[in-house]
């Protein structure tokens, strides 16, 4: 499988800011970051790499671009950091645009390469350091920066206004009540067992997912709440653009919202990067070793509801399905077995992808790459032909994608390579197979 060669991409978030840069200014920012934000970890990784290239075959970008070494993980580090370090940051502005293109649009920081590196070097961390440098220089792909601007203003990633958020929840509550008697989305309930958070595309363009969860919570008799105030969005593209200060503000808002409502734990909707931001990167920037209150991903939550019998499966989804295993919850958190168990519990014709579990390929959309916007869509889809081949080989009709980035990314791959498949969140499968007891029928 392959797509046509790509034209040069113009991007206002990269082309305009580099006009204001000078080698001196770049050097100042680079050295500040080297001296104050990186430490032994960075040096060890840089000095340990023996340039063996074993990471190459781990990368879907490399495999999907005719094994061009420029797309290998080590190649990306070589083209960016090695030069920056060698020249102590004194590089031309055009070079920073190249760094941004490589680090922001051609790497999903999915960490598959680290599993194949003989030294376990976290190459994603190195490319996130490149992103940090680019962000501090103001060179970030336009639509990724726009997403970060939204995070900074609204604390959600899609410019959802406060009134729009609450209005959407109330509308979805109405829809849920039409299916399940007295289903609710309890706003600002203090002391609930579950604080449920979502990512902004849900209220913006996929509101029915919130209605679905209201039905699931009602059927499973979960004591839950959502906040009417900021902190409801668990996503964090600022983590991926390199704007760590905005990342910290977004994460604080999310955890503070749950703490303010005295919730026992946070359950996050189906998103992988958001989980990484909320569990790992965000809390640590703020000073927390772990999230201040327990936080689990929807896959974990669904597993709990199904295995404890709170959700009863009365029929199995029979259309052939496969799965896109989100990097940040499978490779990053080890939820692969639980995900497989809930698929087995709900689907009768599962076609496992190959490779799978933590070895599965990234969807190509994660790591902020899909947020780089339409200008970069063609390169993103071209850069994951291995995923298209992998999905096609399963013979499945549906790809279960318990992650928003995976969902959109796989949709683009299905469309780009004309695979004739469809994507579904796991909650959409659940809605087709769970029992709604008679007393709860609307």
């Amino acid at each position: 499988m392959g797509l046509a060669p790509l034209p040069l991409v113009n991007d206002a978030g990269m082309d305009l800011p580099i006009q204001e840069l000078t080698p001196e200014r770049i050097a100042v920012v680079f050295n500040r970051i080297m001296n104050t934000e990186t430490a032994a970890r960075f040096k060890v990784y840089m000095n340990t790499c023996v340039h063996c290239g074993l990471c190459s075959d781990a990368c879907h970008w490399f495999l999907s671009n005719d094994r061009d070494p420029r797309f290998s993980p080590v190649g990306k580090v070589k083209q960016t950091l090695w030069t920056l370090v060698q020249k102590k940051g004194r590089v031309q502005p055009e070079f920073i645009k190249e760094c941004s293109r490589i680090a922001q649009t051609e790497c999903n920081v999915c960490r598959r390469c680290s599993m194949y590196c003989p030294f376990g070097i976290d190459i994603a961390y190195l490319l996130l350091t490149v992103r940090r440098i680019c962000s501090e220089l103001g060179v970030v792909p336009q639509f990724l920066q726009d997403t970060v601007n939204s995070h900074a203003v609204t604390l959600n990633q899609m410019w959802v206004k406060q009134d729009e958020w609450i209005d959407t929840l109330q509308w979805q509550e109405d829809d849920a009540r039409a299916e399940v008697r007295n289903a609710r989305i309890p706003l600002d309930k203090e002391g609930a067992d579950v604080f449920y958070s979502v990512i902004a595309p849900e209220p913006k363009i996929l509101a029915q997912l919130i209605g679905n969860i209201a039905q699931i919570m009602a059927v499973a008799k979960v004591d839950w709440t959502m906040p009417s105030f900021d902190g409801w969005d668990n996503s964090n593209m600022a983590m991926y653009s390199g704007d760590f200060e905005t990342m910290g503000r977004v994460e604080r808002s999310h955890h503070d919202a749950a703490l303010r409502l005295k919730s026992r734990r946070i359950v996050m909707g189906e998103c992988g990067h958001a989980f990484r931001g909320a569990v790992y990167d965000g809390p640590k920037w703020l000073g927390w070793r772990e999230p201040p209150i327990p936080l689990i991903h929807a896959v974990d939550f669904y597993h709990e509801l199904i295995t404890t019998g709170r959700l009863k499966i009365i029929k199995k989804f029979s259309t052939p399905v496969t799965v896109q295993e989100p990097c940040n919850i499978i490779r990053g958190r080890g939820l692969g077995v639980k995900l497989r168990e809930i698929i087995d519990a709900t689907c009768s014709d599962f076609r496992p992808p190959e490779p799978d579990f933590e070895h599965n390929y990234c969807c190509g959309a994660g790591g902020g790459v899909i947020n780089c916007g339409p200008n970069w869509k063609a390169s993103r889809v071209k850069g994951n032909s291995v995923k298209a081949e992998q999905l096609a080989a399963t013979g499945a009709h549906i790809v279960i994608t318990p992650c928003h980035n995976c969902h959109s990314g796989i949709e683009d791959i299905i469309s780009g390579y004309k695979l004739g498949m469809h994507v579904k969140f796991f909650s959409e499968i659940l809605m087709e197979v769970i029992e709604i007891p008679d007393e709860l029928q609307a």
Partner: protein
Amino acid sequence: MNEIISNLAKSWDWDTPSKNLSDISQWSSNFSEVQELVTSMDGERIASVVRAGDESFTVCVNGEPWSNTFEKAWSLKFSPAGVLFVIAMNEDEWSVFEEDEPWNDTFEYVWNLNFSPNGKIAGVNVRSAEGYGASLNGETWEHKFVQVRSMHISNDGRNSAGSVQMEPLSEGDIVTFKKGIWGLAVNGHPWEQRFLNVWGCAFSGDGTRVAAEVRLKSGSQTIAVDGICWNEQFKAVWEPVFIPGTHEVIAPGLSSKGWQLHINGSPLWNQPFNQVWRQKFGPDGKRLAAVVSPDFGRWSIAVDGTVWKSTFSDVVIEPIFSFDSKHVAAAVKNNNRWTIAVDGVAWNQGFDMAWNPYFSPDGNMVVARIALGKNYFVALDGKLVLGPFEEMWDPIFSPDGESLLVKCVDDSRYFRKILPVKELLKK
């Protein structure tokens, strides 16, 4: 409990030992849906949004429904002064209902119901055909904005402020955004200055000044007071507070040294921390406490720059001062168990949840609402002295410190109890 509530409490009934004010199970018989319960500060009233019919909701207070019914109703709250408010909608028009009476104005949407600390003023953010703004006790800001994102009210309720978007922004327009299109509107009048972002504002005690977190450019944040920025800039800042009785401002700022508290832009406490936030002055207006992280993954309280000897692994909520400002307590979580720490010493027992602690008027005792499983208890100086209850709200000391007001639901009945502290301590 702050000084304002303490003053209000002087007029409450502290003599009647127990009042069974409503049978909540009866509500469930009368209404097909009973939502979350709220109680007035004095405990005399308990209320909930209830479903009045297939398609309508109302508010039930001590078992009695309001005369008004609504297509939607939410954000039911008692003001500190004991007035009951709800945001409600009929025929696509939203308004605020105050004790079953609507405000004059209706809006396309209403949210962020908030009160002045003295309890006299209620404010909401509103959206109308003309744009976004705020309404206080039914009086709506004259000017409207592209967007408004917060509602802050001064202590005396005379002034209100919110962060506002001054210009429209198209999808993906990072150039206009970079110029700064956000400001702070005070009583509906925006600051002249524009910023990339405006967050977390605070009024001075006299309500004449306003400070807010602002972002000047990526990686450069500071505090603006009445629109004028501090000279010093930081990588990041958190919410400011005014020193009581003055127009000087304290806020956390992040520099290459770490997080530090700053006064008007200069370091206040020299020691940098991994984190510092939620700084708060005692009632004397002099002692200052804040939540700090002295070491990565450890949390504590610093008072006047001195960190408690105890640190906690998970979280420290906020400092709560005694009335004489000599003592500080906080709800803390350590190794996944909640408890209360007083002057750095944690209670022995851990709980599934702990709410903010409150000092007795003389500062010698601390009370808190805590939860074990789904049962609620009163904890006094570390001992469970009352409970379990199905629902409970924060216990309040009487002004003389002799009694505790406990508001609870027990066996589906709502009680307002006045309990002698001496008796409780014997348990």
